[in-house]
């Protein structure tokens, strides 16, 4: 307790040191209410608040960045059809969005702490953007920054011979967070069938097992932005290994979540192709990635294959509006019918964003579709109106459609319409 008192006193002293302007605080308080629209059981699935606080401190010697978020969902005060696990996790939730110190040294900016790093030029598609895992408690949202999880890392940024060079090392492993069982967007990864049980997930206790490292080189030539990326990481999305187990109750199939390593080499570019149009592209090659088999037989149900992904996009500017189309395809190299993933997984997106009424009304429309693999489609529309510099309101519509076992279609009865009222300070 005495130690905490000293730490608090020290922190207070540091905050009060220097001018008020040297310590920058900002925040926003949002009231949110969302409900299902197309379900047989209409339901308000979120009625609560979100508060975000951001702190920055800059000197000639170092900078500090910190941002935290607190969420309260008042629907759990009633009797919603959610599990105790969902209540425990989502009624009150605090999470760090980022917290790191940055120091310039030896020609590089050294950043140490919890950070979000976005590589690539794709909108809402995770191609080169593989460093931070996601929190899917609210499934997919229009702003990926709202559900990208910060992770602790050491990151260096600097110039090396006209190339912006970024190096990072992540000492820990953080998997994707699927929504808790019994919550609004619960994702059933392990089938609930007799004779099948979930085993404890694989753990990675050694630093060598956990860490990931990457490098990005970026440069703008005349008329071309180019980035080259190399990343050695562990897949934040699990595969399920199978094993025959037995206990006093008899034999069963044990399924264990595993997160396998892969190396990715990739590139992204952007170049103007006409006065109002920019061409964007992104590409990766993974020599060996782990995929699941449809029928494990006597094996662990996993095989390694290479994978490539390629995306092309066009951005068209018209006045205050930006219109974009993206076409992405992921291909498994040396695919075989025994793999549970399709050989090709194409994804198409169309989006528009712009502002009107002197910038007071911002409109964003995003449509994603995966028609070939039967994963359905997702349409989101968000209109945000700013009354002044402090108050704004947003109207959001999220429509998901597709086969019930598809990525989007599984939540087709969880479409949501919502209102947000935000005060910024």
């Amino acid at each position, binding site marked *: 307790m005495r130690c905490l008192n000293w730490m608090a006193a020290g922190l207070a002293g540091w905050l009060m040191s220097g001018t008020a302007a040297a310590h920058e605080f900002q925040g926003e308080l949002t009231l949110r209410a969302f409900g299902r629209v197309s379900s047989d059981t209409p339901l308000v699935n979120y009625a609560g608040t979100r508060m975000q606080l951001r702190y920055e401190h*800059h000197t000639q010697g170092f900078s500090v960045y910190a941002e935290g978020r607190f969420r309260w969902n008042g629907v759990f005060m009633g009797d919603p059809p959610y599990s105790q696990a969902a209540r425990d996790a989502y009624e009150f939730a605090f999470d760090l969005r980022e917290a790191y110190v940055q120091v310039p040294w030896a020609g590089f900016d050294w950043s140490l702490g919890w950070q979000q790093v976005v590589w690539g030029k794709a909108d809402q598609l995770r191609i080169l953007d593989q460093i931070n895992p996601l929190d899917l408690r609210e499934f997919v949202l229009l702003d990926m920054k709202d559900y990208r999880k910060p992770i602790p890392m050491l990151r260096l940024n600097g110039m090396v011979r006209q190339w912006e060079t970024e190096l990072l090392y992540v000492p820990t492993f953080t998997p994707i967070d699927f929504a808790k069982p019994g919550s609004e967007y619960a994702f059933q990864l392990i089938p609930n069938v007799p004779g099948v049980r979930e085993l404890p997930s694989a753990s990675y206790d050694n630093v060598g097992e956990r860490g990931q490292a990457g490098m990005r080189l970026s440069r703008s030539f005349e*008329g071309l932005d180019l980035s080259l990326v190399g990343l050695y990481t562990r897949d934040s999305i699990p595969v399920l290994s199978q094993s025959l187990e037995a206990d006093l109750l008899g034999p069963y199939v044990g399924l264990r979540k595993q997160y396998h390593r892969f190396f990715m080499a990739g590139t992204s570019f952007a170049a*103007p192709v006409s*006065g109002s*149009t*920019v061409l964007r592209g992104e590409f990766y090659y993974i020599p060996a990635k782990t995929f699941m088999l449809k029928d494990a037989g006597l094996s662990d149900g996993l095989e390694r294959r290479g994978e490539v992904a390629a995306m092309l996009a066009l951005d068209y500017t018209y006045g205050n509006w930006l219109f974009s189309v993206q076409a992405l395809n992921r291909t498994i190299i040396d695919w075989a019918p025994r793999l549970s993933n399709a050989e090709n997984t194409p994804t198409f997106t169309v989006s528009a964003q712009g502002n009107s009424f002197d*910038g007071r009304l911002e409109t964003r429309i995003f449509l994603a579709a995966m028609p070939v693999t039967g994963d359905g489609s997702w349409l989101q529309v968000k209109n945000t109106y700013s009354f002044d510099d402090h108050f704004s309101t947003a109207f959001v519509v999220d429509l998901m459609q597709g086969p019930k076992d598809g990525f989007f279609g599984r939540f087709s009865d969880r479409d949501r319409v919502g209102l947000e009222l935000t005060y910024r300070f």
Partner: protein
Amino acid sequence: MNIKHIITLALAAAFSGAALAAADADAILKAVRDRPDGKDIYSETHLILADPGGSVRERELFYLQKDYPGEERLTLYFKAPSDVKGVGFQSANYDEAAGKDDEQWLYMPAFRQVRRIATGDKRGSFMGSEYAYIDLDKLRVGDYQQTVTGSEAVGGRDCWAVERVPASADIIAKTGYDKTAVWVDKERNLVVKQTYYNSAGVLFKTMEAARVEQVQGIWTVMESVMTDHLSGKRSTLRFDNVRYDVGLGDELFQQRVLQGGVHEGNLPSSR
């Protein structure tokens, strides 16, 4: 001297007068474009948006500009209010003689990505103001055909009045202006007033330099006001703490600065 000689001489006089007016206009605007403005510029800038109803919104930003061989780089970084904090804009404006299109990038904190923007359409409003992106560009002489229409006093200063017509449909599409007129301070080579006409020939926007001061020997527009005559809205750009040749580092004009932000740590302490 017969009638043919008189007509020939009259035509020669008319064309040489027109050529002289055109040449003078080009020379005047080249002098504006090429006037010395230091190797770099630092300013704490305020963008103030006012509508006829009395509502006022104010944005604070860092304005950073630096000369490089054959180009000029600009970084704008918004620091307040909180709904625009962290928005960053960068451009590379190449010398006209190079004949290259300029380049622009935008950073939105929500996406955490630096995005290249097409530069063929710069009609869009800059942060909701009456300034379009094209209005922030360096003056380009060759994009227009200009003519001196006379001399006028503006704000007590003797100015050239120059009418400018876009040289091609591409320029009209890029700027949204079918015609503009500029008033150039004869002594200081500074644009102190500019009017803008739409495709219907209507004067719909006027920019006026509200305050001009000499900073480190360089005449500088410290405050300009853009008025939209159709809506009655007005936007003011106020440049505070303008400093030339402060030694802005190259890192302030690299894309990574948009993600980390412009702040005390990467600005020269001597500004």
